[in-house]
């Protein structure tokens, strides 16, 4: 990567972090806008995790939302019934849900591409059914309402601007961790598996092991996001963690640009608010959403940001080539 583009990447990262952390205070006056922001930040976190899997390892895990659901229900159970703190329950259930995710995904992880996706879809369906058929923990289709926001020091509850701020920190950290993994040895192995898993294996990379590691990390993202979702929205039901949610998060990654750090952030920032902002256009909301998907897939298969990067690289190549020609002529 050239010095110029990595400098630009750091600028983008700083700008995103500053904006995300400042936004709760800027939008705090309108509870509606603040809520849209909070939901967007949860989706930024989710898209970051999905990107690690879909963008860097090449696996599209459709049970993403289901794993978030397991963590979410477990967190709610532990905080309401067992009296745990949100801040202890969340890491515990997230690791637990990620382990369950890996166990459920184990047979699927030996598959690749489309077959993995199909298998993960089946697992997601089973999880959605499980949420409905174990009402003791999930209250079935009715869902669990009036979930309290995360507890805070001195017996208070984290709410309003400060809860938004906590979500912003989680989102920024989530993206930062992905940005830290990608250039590491671990990230390089992920990319090798995405590019050509057979070649990767012949070069000594244990493909299944690294898929499991990736899947564990992705599941952690799903789970942490699921816990924040419950604490933020205050209501969870099987619909909050069904396959459409997985697909939505996937779409943010594909729309923004899989396999780039900034792309999925952009995807979440653009797509996550749409359902809320277009509430008045309820009837045509899904049509607008669908049309957007088709346009991006046809016109920008690498995602908005991915395509922009590609064009810029091509443009730069063209200018250096003509520069070289000019040099040769003189």
């Amino acid at each position: 990567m050239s010095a110029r583009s990595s400098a630009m990447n750091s600028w983008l990262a700083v700008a995103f972090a500053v904006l995300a952390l400042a936004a709760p205070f800027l939008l705090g006056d309108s509870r509606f806008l603040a809520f849209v922001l909070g939901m967007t930040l949860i989706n930024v976190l989710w898209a970051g995790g999905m990107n690690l899997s879909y963008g860097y390892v090449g696996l599209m895990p459709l049970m993403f939302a289901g794993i978030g659901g397991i963590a979410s229900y477990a967190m709610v159970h532990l905080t309401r019934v067992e009296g745990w703190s949100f801040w202890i329950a969340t890491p515990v259930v997230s690791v637990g849900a990620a382990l369950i995710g890996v166990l459920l995904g184990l047979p699927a992880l030996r598959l690749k591409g489309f077959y993995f996706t199909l298998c993960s879809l089946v697992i997601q369906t089973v999880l959605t059914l499980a949420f409905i058929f174990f009402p003791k923990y999930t209250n079935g289709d009715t869902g669990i309402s009036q979930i309290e926001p995360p507890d805070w020091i001195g017996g208070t509850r984290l709410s309003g601007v400060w809860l938004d701020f906590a979500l912003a920190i989680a989102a920024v950290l989530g993206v930062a961790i992905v940005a830290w993994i990608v250039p590491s040895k671990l990230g390089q192995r992920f990319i090798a598996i995405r590019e050509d898993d057979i070649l990767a294996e012949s070069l000594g990379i244990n493909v299944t092991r690294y898929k499991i590691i990736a899947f564990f990390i992705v599941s952690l993202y799903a789970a942490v996001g699921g816990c924040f979702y419950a604490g933020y929205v205050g209501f969870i039901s099987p619909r909050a963690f069904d396959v459409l949610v997985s697909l939505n998060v996937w779409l943010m990654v594909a729309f923004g640009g899989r396999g780039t750090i900034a792309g999925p952030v952009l995807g979440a920032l653009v797509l996550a608010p749409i359902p809320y902002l277009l509430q008045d256009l309820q009837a045509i909301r899904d049509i607008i959403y669908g049309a957007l998907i088709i346009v991006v897939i046809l016109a920008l298969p690498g995602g908005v940001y991915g395509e922009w990067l590609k064009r810029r690289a091509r443009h730069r190549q063209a200018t250096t080539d003509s520069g070289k020609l000019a040099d040769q002529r003189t």
Partner: protein
Amino acid sequence: MTNMPLLETTALSKHFGGVSALRDVSVTLNQGETLGMIGPNGSGKTTFVNAVTGTLRADSGSIQFAGTRTLGFAPNQLAAIGLVRTYQAVRVFGGLSVEANIRTAGLLPGEAGISRSEYDELLTWLRLDGLPHKEAASLTLFEQRRLELMMRLVLRPKVIMLDEPVGGLAVTEVREMINLLAELKARCTIFVIEHTMRVIRELADRVVVLVSGEKIADGPPTEILRDSKVIEHYLGTAHA
């Protein structure tokens, strides 16, 4: 021969449904040797490499590599103990730069990797030193073949199995590749599948001939290439 076998297969067999792709193939590869394998299309040469490098699991027989019984080892395990292979159709990480390709190859867990000076020396030797930031997919076939070698050599292999290393190359490039492989002989033990007899004649210390999954000859290239049985199978005169 005073050399000890570094790689040895005993009665290796592999069936695909009713077709036996390998039938009791016993081959030894000695330390420092270059062993060629020839045979008509479909005779099981690539299947043999696949079976030895763990891409396919042989049905019966045994494989011994560097003193370890390796039947059932995965390709990554074999790479970690020094047995690597290249592919008939060149295989590099097309979307990554040359440098990233090599770095990715050198990521074996628990391996310290090669030193900077060894790395630079290999890069210069394979004439890849001007290309580190080029995307691998944009390289010429010959450059990709050299990159393939580089990606294996950073793993410090004991044995490298080459599946048609000059396939698809232009005549002048074949000459250059043969020169490179002749120098490679000093670096590691080589097993090479080739249809281009010049490669076998110039590089191989010994040749095995595979026909319909069976080994029909094993010996020095000068003898083997004159053997009437081999000529018959190779040129198809039996049915002419």
